[in-house]
């Protein structure tokens, strides 16, 4: 028995975000650091951990490469696993798909536990089965996923059909277990026609659709962990060439980390990411204020890396800075603090975007892509529901 579920997935270099259909960014969205490991089955044994869903055994999948045990977070650290990381190209990277399967599996097991199978889907199916004299298969629930996910704009709109590759690599039937939780087998399927793919950054234009004129040029700066995607939109349509320089959040973190080390503050990457937001370094009972260092590094990051890339993008697309009406920042590093400065402000200044307005699409710029993509999930889900009810009729 198939039970529809809607899910929006933003699988980024530093963080994975899973937004179920009935959730919001503030409530219901799962956020996980992208620190996956793959564990050899012969080395696996059950261990005590707080996050029992941090380890998943994929026992059936359309591709052999996806089978096996994946873990992450504190649970992953309990095992000697092989770290699986994303590259700057997602759709031709098997690790991206492995992580994707885990993401869906995790949502499925939580839905299983919440008792979705004891609610509408199972009750209705069981009732109609009895009325119609059909075998009652309500005990076996297969989650039928309607998913929208984001991929880099250069893959979404590039010469290679990365979207078709992604759909082909993910469509199919899956069976998974979370052995640290129970022996229950969770089943789900992904169908090509209900797997929507939108461009990171570009999907932000859904939020601006009523605010931009058809001839307005907008510069999107999606600063991820591995790459910063730069793109220009005319109205709501992608315009010309895009750029994806590999100077992004990780570069900023490395530079800030180095600058802090010069003044005697030795922090992990995770701690530095936090310091970039707050401007503070934990130092015993009282936090140390390093906001001036963070401000300086943000300024230098734009001057040394982004400014020339943006100028080049404008040149390649035969535009000048005066034609840019909007600058749309996306990504965690774009969140500005009153003390730690604003990368988008430096972009405006250094690139002379004197006619541009800043369009912030979310309170937390980390979640622009997943929030805007969820609009498409809702629309796809509606379509899937309609199809399901027509089939039932």
């Amino acid at each position, binding site marked *: 028995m198939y039970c529809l579920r809607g899910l929006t997935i933003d699988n980024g270099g530093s963080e994975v975000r899973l937004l179920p259909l009935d959730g919001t960014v503030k409530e219901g969205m799962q956020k996980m650091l992208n620190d996956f490991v793959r564990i050899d089955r012969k080395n696996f044994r059950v261990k005590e951990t707080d996050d029992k869903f941090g380890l998943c055994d994929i026992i059936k999948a359309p591709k052999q490469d996806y089978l096996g045990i994946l873990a992450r977070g504190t649970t992953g650290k309990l095992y000697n696993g092989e770290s699986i990381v994303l590259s700057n190209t997602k759709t031709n990277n098997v690790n991206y798909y492995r992580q994707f399967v885990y993401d869906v599996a995790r949502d499925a097991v939580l839905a299983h536990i919440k008792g979705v199978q004891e609610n509408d889907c199972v009750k209705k199916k069981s009732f109609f089965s009895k009325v119609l004299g059909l075998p009652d298969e309500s005990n076996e629930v297969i989650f039928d996923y309607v998913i929208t996910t984001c991929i880099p704009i250069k893959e979404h709109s590039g010469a290679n059909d990365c979207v078709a590759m992604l759909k082909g690599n993910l469509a199919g039937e899956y069976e998974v277990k979370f052995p640290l939780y129970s022996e229950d087998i969770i089943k789900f399927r992904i169908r090509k026609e209900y797997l929507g793919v939108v461009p990171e950054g570009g999907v932000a234009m859904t939020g601006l659709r009523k605010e931009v004129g058809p001839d307005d040029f907008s510069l999107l700066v999606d600063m991820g962990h591995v790459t910063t995607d730069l793109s220009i939109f005319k109205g709501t349509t992608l315009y010309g060439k895009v750029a994806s320089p590999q100077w992004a959040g990780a570069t900023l973190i490395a530079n800030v980390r180095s600058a802090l080390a010069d003044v005697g503050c030795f922090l992990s990457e995770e701690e530095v990411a936090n310091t970039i937001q707050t401007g503070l370094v934990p130092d015993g009972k009282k936090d140390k204020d390093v906001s001036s260092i963070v401000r300086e590094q943000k300024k230098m990051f734009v001057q040394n890396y982004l400014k020339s890339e943006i100028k080049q993008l404008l040149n390649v697309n035969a535009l000048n800075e005066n034609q840019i009406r909007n600058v749309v920042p996306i990504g965690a590093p774009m969140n500005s603090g009153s003390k730690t400065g604003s990368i988008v402000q430096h972009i405006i200044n250094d690139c002379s975007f004197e006619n541009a307005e800043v369009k912030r*699409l*979310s309170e937390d710029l980390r979640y622009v892509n997943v929030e805007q993509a969820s609009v498409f999930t809702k629309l796809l889900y509606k379509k899937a529901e309609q199809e399901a009810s027509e089939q039932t009729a």
Partner: protein
Amino acid sequence: MEVLLSIPDDLVKYIEYIPDDVLPELLIDMVKRDILGRHDCNSRDEPSIKSQQDLSKIFELLQQAQDSSRFNTVQQTQQNSVNEFIETEIEEQETVILSQLNIQDTEEMGDLMDLLK
């Protein structure tokens, strides 16, 4: 004598970037050379003189060169150090969480449905 003087395309295109203390001299030099050149002209066709109209255009350009504030902007930019940038207050747009809006159907999305593959 009629003098037909055509302003080079490059000059017309980039005239706003030429400092105002250079432009008049440049144009006068062009006129002078043209007139002096035609003095030795052996062409059977005498250039027609629309001197009043042509010179009016030139004087108009000269006048614009002296009055235009664009030249002031160019001069100011040249004088500023490349390491300086102007701190301007950019008013950020009020945040609207648009994904929470109730979108009923794909028609409302219009061309944006092309984003979904």
